[in-house]
């Protein structure tokens, strides 16, 4: 069986950043397995700009951003196998993969970085009633058809869900001459970034209807129309609020789901909130030596943070190989939260093993104004920052210093709390 020290599953932004960082940490036996025919993952179809503001201090398109990381990976001579699908990951870190030329093969890895990204929630998972004609696409599928294949999926469009891809596609389809009539969003707030609502909807006069959903899809062969309705506080459609739209296309942008089929197969513990692995301060999953980063861990808004997180995972994977499986100390301190926070990544922190400066990322469950985010260690406030507005669509973060946490001798509790200002 082939052996590699670090096997990275996925050659998108997370996988590339992890590979680069593992290499720079001194690791030379690295393999990236990518199912597509090119590196860069979903960035390749994100031809709009706005990528890289944090990382490169300039606005890049998705393919440009991917290219920068790809060049770094290529310059280091890191091995990549393209068109290669990972079929299975076992708990002992045996990776089974397949492609046209090598057939099905197995690799024994000392460390694995999960970087498989996420998928879109489908119409079926949303249980939207109606017919099942052609003309219903997830926003990402439409994005691929338009930006990679050069095809128009439709001319008269209704969009359900205000996730970022849906917003981006509202603008993209409009620029291609389609008529985007409305974006309906089930929740009373958008799941997308504020800047996308402004730049992709407001600038083109596309209405965003909050607390609305699709209640019927018409058309037996191709979509001929959809009906949307307002929903009540329990997300149930309110009778009498139905509005009909003639259209040939319904795009869905109703949330992203981390793709953890391989992780589950290996026995990695998955958080029911994020649908991603539970990880410790080193982004290590419940299986020692298996790390996770990017959208497979939890869905991000900005690729810059994916790269940052994945670089950490890559470094930690390299360190794991170098140092071996450190003797199990205590499990670390659970990160608890209050005040509307839905989850944190990581979910535990070991003050011995954490790096000097660690980012804890989290999301809140509703829109909140004028708040203070505070961190309490052993009940004592160690950090605070003001937030004028917090929303489910925008990822939050706090920075923790190792020295600060170690001050306590033994860290018993670590709590992140959102309080009213």
């Amino acid at each position: 069986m082939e052996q590699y020290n670090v096997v990275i599953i996925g050659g998108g932004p997370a996988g590339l950043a992890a590979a680069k960082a593992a290499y720079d940490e001194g690791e030379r036996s690295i393999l990236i397995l990518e199912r597509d025919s090119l590196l860069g993952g979903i960035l390749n179809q994100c031809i709009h700009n706005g990528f890289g503001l944090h990382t490169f201090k300039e606005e890049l398109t998705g393919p440009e951003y991917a290219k920068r990381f790809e060049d770094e990976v290529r310059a280091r001579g890191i091995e990549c196998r393209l068109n290669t699908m990972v079929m299975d990951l076992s708990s002992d870190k045996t990776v089974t993969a397949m492609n046209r030329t090598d057939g099905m093969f197995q690799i024994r890895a000392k460390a694995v970085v999960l970087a498989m990204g996420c998928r879109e929630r489908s119409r079926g998972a949303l249980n939207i009633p109606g017919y099942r004609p052609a003309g219903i696409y997830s926003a990402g599928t439409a994005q691929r058809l338009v930006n990679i294949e050069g095809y128009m999926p439709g001319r008269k469009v209704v969009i359900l869900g205000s996730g970022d891809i849906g917003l981006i596609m509202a603008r993209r389809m409009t620029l291609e001459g389609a008529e985007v009539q409305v974006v309906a969003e089930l929740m009373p707030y958008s799941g997308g970034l504020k800047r996308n609502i402004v730049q992709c909807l407001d600038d083109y006069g596309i209405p965003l209807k909050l607390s609305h959903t699709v209640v019927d899809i018409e058309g037996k062969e191709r979509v001929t129309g959809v009906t949307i309705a307002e929903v009540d506080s329990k997300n149930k459609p309110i009778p009498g609020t139905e509005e009909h739209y003639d259209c040939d296309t319904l795009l869905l942008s109703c949330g992203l789901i981390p793709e953890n089929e391989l992780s589950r197969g290996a026995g990695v513990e998955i958080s029911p909130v994020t649908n991603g692995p539970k990880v410790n301060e080193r982004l290590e999953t419940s299986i020692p030596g298996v790390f996770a980063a990017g959208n497979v861990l939890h869905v991000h808004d900005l690729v810059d943070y994916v790269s940052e997180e994945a670089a950490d995972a890559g470094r930690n994977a390299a360190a794991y190989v170098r140092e071996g499986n450190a003797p199990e100390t205590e499990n670390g301190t659970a990160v608890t939260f209050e005040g509307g926070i839905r989850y944190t990544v990581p979910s535990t922190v070991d003050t011995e093993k954490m790096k000097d400066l660690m980012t804890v990322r989290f999301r809140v469950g509703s829109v909140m104004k004028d708040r203070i985010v505070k961190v309490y260690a052993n009940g004592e406030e160690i950090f605070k920052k003001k937030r004028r507005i917090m929303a489910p669509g925008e990822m939050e973060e706090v920075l923790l210093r190792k020295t600060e946490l170690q001050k306590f001798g033994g860290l018993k509790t670590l709590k992140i709390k959102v309080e009213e200002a």
Partner: protein
Amino acid sequence: MWDAVVIGAGVTGSAVARYLSRYRAKVLVVEKSEDVCTGTSKANSAIVHAGYDAKNGSLMAKYNLEGSLMMEDLSKELDFPYDRCGSLVVCLSEADRPTLEKLYENGVKNGVKGLEIVERDRLVEMEPNISDDAVAALYAPTGAIICPFLFTIALAENAAENGVEFRFDTEVKSIGRTGDGVFKLVTDKGEILTKTVVNAAGVYADFFHNMMCEKKIRITPRKGEYLLLDHEAEGFVRHTIFQLPGKFGKGVLVSPTVHKNVIVGPTANDIDDREGTNTTASGLAEVMEKSARALKNVPVRKTITSFAGLRAHEDGHEFIVEESKENPGFFDAAGIESPGLSSAPAIGKAVAEMVKARLKLEEDPSFKATRKGIVHAAELSIEERNELIKKNPAYGQIICRCENVSEGEIIDAIRRPLGAKSLDGVKRRVRAGMGRCQAGFCSPRVMEILARELGKDQSEVTKSGGESRIIVGEIKDKW
């Protein structure tokens, strides 16, 4: 001049065609859709009923039992998935026990083997998620599950391999007789002359019956809505779980599928529209609510898709499988609602024998009873898979990541006899797009393969034939 024309390429029509193909005869199947298995046959519970339910002495009881007994051997001959997982009809109240006993007795009378009433303790062992209200159940070890698509496709392919011709996108408008015992079918693609006609038109069977027969029938589309749950729900139930009709009315079933999903449904609502396969908010809600009666914590949140099918319900609630008295040579296979899928082999065989008797057909010694399905690469060992990839590298390229379907399988689905012509056609044959992302990732790839294999432009590729085109044109830069 054809010896026999079968109207409808659903499971019944395909079964008739397959059993007719063993005789020396010129047989044609005409189908208004672009593929086999696009109506009632594609959207049902995917169950082989054991045969205890239908009224003793009815054709439903007869053909159900015969079909159920034929199915396993047939699944080996024609290479389609079949799993005799057994079924349980769950009694949720002591008050309903007499109904359960009656069902048992009816089953015994119908000739169903192995039936027994299991009490709560054993039931809980068999199905740990069974409702706390469950008091007993009728256990039918011969109950089974199949894939209705692959079953129908297997029958049709085998018929085609044995010389039966299929014409798709061909809608029969009327049937008449010319002199001397010849039928004339007027279709949207011209006229067809034939010595015999088999009416296997599903929800449209009454149209054709009533053109030919004095005693009129009426078929009402009875809509059934379903939820299909993700592979993650696999193992939630081990048997097909029915609810005994009782104080809550008729329930819904929860069953494993041969593809390791869980199916939940159906509702039963009579509608007017014979193409009305839309799901409804109330229907889906009803499925969820009713499924919770016999089982605890049904994982309906793991739904990957919902769909509706139409049962061809005839007023008499009985199969009509016979030759017309006024018009000898016209054969009905009408009113084929549940247990129609289970009965299909028996009905197919019976109708084929009626046609044989009418035309005095002879056995065709070249008839080949077996057929090999598309290889399911995900089920092979690493060695077997590598052997396959060495011969054809396309089997090493995964296209549908949710169901692990390779390009090789998709190409085979397109190239084989009666091959797939649309995304849905591919989906029914090899499951690309059937998984949890519901074709989000693979549909552009499958479109590409379909266009290449069929020598078409991608703009001509459809979801399911007709006007169901996936794309409407090119982007500006390409103009």
